[in-house]
């Protein structure tokens, strides 16, 4: 402190002799040192007061008193500065925790696309921020059944991520791929309704494919309708299903529907992040997606998903506004 006091007095004296920009600049560099050493604002004023006292020994006591007044007032200012510094440290700690949590989440929710002989499966799921609010879960029973859950948690950030882990463990406990979609949705609805707070909802599309019988059975809980392409009719169908979002009410019943898949038919399951490019004027997002899928129909399911993502990212100037997930089952 003594050393700083001497340095400050010199810098101030230089300035009082010569009011140059250079001397001001030196002053600013000096204050940086003080900040680094955590010298508080009231201490700076006290340093100033002593320096003035030494440079002008005849200074009136009124002026000196005015510095004491300023010191008194600046105590609170100093406390504010210290509070902010400590909040910054806390913020940094939170940021680090958040990064760890993100890593854990992506590890927990990692999904491998099952390899099935009679069905071509593709998937792309890209988070808009660190934590993905979409989740795709596959189950595969020794070449008899393969099922998929496409989920979107309504809500963002850490609560959504925690909710997502619960969905994952709920699905894990169901264990078998040949469960009926209505059963799966009803069980998950009960779990989520009981354990998650009221502001948190989950939409889910659940489909099970019977590999031998080529039957796709599906149900939906408030999810963006999947798109079914029937290659014989060369037509698209929206797989509408008016199930309530998961977690809104207990004991909800979910209906399920069946489709027979023929050669070159496909089912396109998406989250609402895919249809979220509204600012492109009067384009109907779902029609854009259908056209895109048709353009890429000769590619593999995985390539179809990747091309669609690339195209839509381009269309929106890389400004997709939500997590983006596409899953394709192609016969």
């Amino acid at each position, binding site marked *: 402190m003594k050393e700083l006091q001497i340095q400050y007095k010199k810098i101030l004296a230089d300035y009082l002799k010569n009011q140059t920009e250079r001397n001001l600049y030196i002053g600013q560099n000096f204050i940086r040192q003080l900040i680094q050493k955590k010298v508080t604002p009231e201490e700076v004023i*006290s340093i100033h007061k002593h320096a003035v006292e030494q440079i002008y020994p005849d200074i009136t006591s009124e002026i000196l008193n005015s510095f004491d007044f300023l010191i008194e007032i600046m105590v*609170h*200012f100093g406390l504010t500065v210290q*509070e902010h510094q*400590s*909040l910054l440290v806390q913020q940094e700690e939170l940021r680090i925790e958040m990064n760890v949590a993100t890593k854990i989440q992506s590890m927990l929710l990692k999904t491998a696309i099952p390899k099935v002989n009679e069905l071509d499966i593709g998937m792309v799921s890209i988070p808009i921020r660190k934590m993905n609010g979409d989740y795709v879960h596959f189950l595969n029973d020794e070449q008899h059944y393969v099922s998929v859950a496409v989920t979107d948690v309504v809500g963002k950030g850490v609560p959504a991520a925690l909710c997502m882990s619960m969905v994952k463990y709920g699905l894990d406990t169901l264990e078998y791929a040949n469960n009926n979609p209505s059963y799966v949705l009803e069980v998950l609805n009960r779990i989520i309704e009981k354990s998650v707070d009221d502001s948190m909802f989950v939409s889910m599309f659940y489909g099970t494919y019977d590999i031998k019988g080529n039957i796709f059975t599906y149900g939906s809980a408030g999810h963006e309708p999947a798109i079914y392409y029937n290659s014989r009719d060369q037509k698209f169908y929206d797989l509408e299903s008016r199930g309530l979002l998961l977690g809104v009410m207990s004991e909800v019943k979910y209906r399920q529907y069946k489709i027979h898949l023929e050669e070159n038919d496909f089912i396109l399951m998406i989250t609402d992040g895919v249809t979220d490019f509204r600012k492109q004027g009067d384009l109907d997002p779902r029609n854009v997606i259908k056209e895109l899928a048709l353009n890429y129909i000769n590619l593999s399911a995985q390539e179809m998903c990747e091309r669609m993502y690339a195209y839509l990212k381009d269309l929106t100037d890389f400004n997709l506004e939500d997590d983006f997930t596409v899953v394709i089952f192609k016969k």
Partner: protein
Amino acid sequence: MVGGIILNSKSTVEIITEWDIVVARQLGRNEAKIIGFGTVEQARITTAISELARNIYLYASAGEIVIERIEEVEKYGIRITAIDKGPGIDNVRKVMEDGYSTSGGLGAGLPGVKRLMDGMEIQTTVGKGTIIKIEKWI
């Protein structure tokens, strides 16, 4: 953390009206000056007293501030004890968090008091009252 041998007799200020806060401040500043604290430290000690007295006035409606000199081997200091029989503090840990006080983000409040001083100790029982001891060494 809070210890030391008491040298002089204590001075006590009853806190009942808002102006008693000023009396406590004045007493604390005088004592700090006599003990040998510099202007900045005097201002800090006074601010801490002010915050504690104000809390008594606002939340406990009545209580007292005790100011005393303390001495240990080759060091001198000041101890302030704020005593009230008010409602007590429900969640001390929470109250000591930055950004919690109603003055939120203005740096004052109990976390500020802790920063201004070298030691702080809170004893409080809900429904019975609160005793807060703070001290600062030269």
